[in-house]
């Protein structure tokens, strides 16, 4: 299944995991210690984040460390920037309308 970044951040636990692994690479066990939920559901969240292509993995001995691919988080800023543009363009149309109405009044 293809997933995207918005599914990743739709869940509060996943957002919290992202914050943790943004700072340092962590093993699943180390991540799980920060949460009051089962190791199994932590694994599920990690799997979803991985499917969203947000995780860089490195193997050290038996342990797998996960770290956030920070560039991927910039995608959401691109979407927000689009929303800003849509809003701004709407207001520019309103400027024109207000100008037309003001001139009519005169």
């Amino acid at each position, binding site marked *: 299944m293809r997933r995207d970044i918005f599914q990743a951040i739709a869940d509060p636990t996943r957002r919290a995991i992202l914050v943790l692994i943004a700072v340092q690479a962590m093993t699943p066990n180390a991540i799980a210690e920060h949460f009051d939920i089962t190791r199994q559901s932590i694994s599920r969240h990690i799997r979803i984040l991985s499917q969203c292509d947000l995780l860089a993995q490195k193997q050290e001995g038996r342990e797998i460390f996960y770290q956030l691919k920070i560039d991927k988080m910039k995608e959401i800023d691109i979407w927000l920037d*689009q929303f800003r543009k*849509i809003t*701004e363009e709407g*207001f520019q*149309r309103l*400027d024109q*309308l207000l100008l037309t109405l*003001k001139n009519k009044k005169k």
Partner: protein
Amino acid sequence: MNQLFDFTVNKDTNTIHITREFAADLDLVWDAFTKAEMLDQWLAPKPWRTQTKEMDFREGGRWLYAMVSPENVSHWSLVEFIKIEDKSFFSGRNTFSDENGKSISSGFSLTSNTFKATGETTTVYVEKKFDSLSTLEMMVAKGFKEGMAMAMSNLDEYLLTLVTSK
């Protein structure tokens, strides 16, 4: 004309704050945000248009409108008005709906609009809080699609992945 336009996002609270100054008096700007015949003239990006089916601007009332594509496909939205203070403030709950105003998505946003006369201009503060970031994404995707329908053929595919994964 270079007017104040401020747009900030708080990702922790899923809230967008917008401040914009308009070169018109308060009465006119208030009407432009609250009267259907005026909203229909500026809200939709060309070649799309806005078409109001119902407008009942009072607390508990609702505004049912569609963004209509150049191919005459309508995308309906509903605003339910929560609180209104004449020429000063109004708030509402926004959702995507069908043509009868029945909600078609669980996502929603709460919008509050504050109006202040500032000499010959009027400043509008908009605060838009989304129930989740994915609702924000959906709104942007729809708005983006409306704005740049031709260029964004991959967006349909993107939206489809969101729908099918639910």
